[in-house]
């Protein structure tokens, strides 16, 4: 199923990517190619087939409720592009 430019714009927004006009055009072309390749699979009748989410049958292990982490603020905040007073900073958000 082919998509249009406005779909590209919508997807780019959902994914928080800025694309210029040339990039949008390129994306439209290449993504439509990918979608036609993917569309092959839609022709197959899979009624009654259970989706496979995990490669093996197993169930989630449970963790004991103990505190194992310590204060790592200094080391981790040092990685941030913009931080002050123990907080990560982003341009002010208006609610």
């Amino acid at each position, binding site marked *: 199923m082919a998509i249009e430019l406005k779909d590209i714009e919508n997807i780019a927004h*959902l994914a928080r990517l800025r694309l210029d006009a040339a990039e949008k055009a390129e994306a439209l072309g290449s993504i439509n190619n990918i979608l036609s390749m993917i569309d092959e699979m839609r022709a197959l009748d899979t009624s009654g087939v259970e989706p496979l989410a995990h490669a093996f049958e197993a169930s989630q292990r449970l963790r004991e409720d*103990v505190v194992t*982490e310590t204060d790592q603020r200094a080391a981790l905040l040092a990685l941030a592009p913009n931080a002050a007073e123990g907080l990560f900073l982003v341009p*002010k958000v208006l609610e």
Partner: protein
Amino acid sequence: MAWETVIGLEVHVQLSTRSKLFSGSSTTFGAEPNTQASLYDLALPGTLPVLNGEALRMAVKFGLAIGAEIGKTSIFDRKNYFYPDLPKGYQTSQLNHPTVGRGSLTITLEDGSTKTIGITRAHMEEDAGKSLHEAFPNDTGIDLNRAGTPLLEIVSEPEIRSAREAVAYLKKLHSLILYLGISDGDMSQGSMRCDANVSVRRLGETAFGTRAEIKNINSFRFVEKAILVEAQRQIDLIEDGGKVVQETRLYDAEKNQTRSMRSKEVANDYRYFPEPDLLPVVIDEAFIASVRDTLPELPDVKSQRFQQQYGLSHYDAQVLAADRDTARFFEAVAAASGDAKLSANWVMVDLQAVLNRQELAIAQSPVAAADLAGLINRIKDGTVSSKIAKTVFEAMVAGEGSADSIIESRGLRQVSDSGAIESMIDAILVANPRQVEQYRSGQEKVFTFFVGQVMKESKGKANPAQVNELLTKKLKG
């Protein structure tokens, strides 16, 4: 035109586990920013979640308490959206296969009637961090201490029909989660948050009207006000020929109105899909049974038992059973004093007044259950009158000692010697011939004057029942 309000409530309860839902960070409230945020909590590359077993137990415990189906296989999903307090850019939540399925909560309304409100489901999810907008002039500061704390989201069916019912539901839910020990349910600290879905329809209509969601109301009182004001807004809008828009709104407590959250444009496409870093959570009968074994006697069952075992009224039983610690305290007093009715009154009225005044929980009561029982015993055996008992009680609250020691040291023993009381009455009648005349000529209200005089003379210690009896006899001549 009669209108009906339709309300559904979504309550987020912070589970009181020691560590977070998927990481071993502490969940303690009030720590310095980002000191309880680990590699996983910050969504560093390469980090992975592992499920906290205690959070699962708490969710199952809640499910059992509301009589819900427990999902034998539950799945976590990714709910995708971008916001600075959501480090991974997705929240790990549960969509189609929640841990807790359909259950219900029975509420008692003001007129004493009960109503059962359906609970659609309850699921586990991670809490987000906090955004601080006031700290910096041009920036918002992000604290991720809270990111990853376990939440239980409890969704009610849209079966609530008034703001009052909504508050009753919330109070019942609050009482239950404290009972189960799964959360401290503190709305002011955010460990219990309420979103209200409100719509209106003409009475008799079966279809639902368009609903608005009012988010993050942080007290029972505001929930009631927000619902009332929103319902009215919708009614006014429709009556003016307008249409209710499905949107998210915030309640402004100062202006007592709701306003649209302008920043939320089109409905977010969350692109849910099953979390590939977690496996399906499979629980068996043995697990459920082990959680069931930890269930305390639930409030409604306890209330029933109080009515049967102690002969309490439905109302009194509900009040005492609503809080686990209060119920426990009451039963201790009743057992030690042998008088359930008196115990109920003293706990619900006198003790509660003190606790309210001093802003204490019953666990911090200045008077122990055994000591209160001691005081009640002294009322029952006639050592003090009910009225004097209140004086004794105040002294016990102030820490002066036990009932007996206070009665002794202050000489508050009730005078029940009928001879002594008779002498007092005789003297008073002699001293007040005019009032005797008035009484004998039909002014029955004068009786209280004489009672007052006897009490004054005896410094309040005369046994009131005996005073009444003897005074009546003497006055009748």
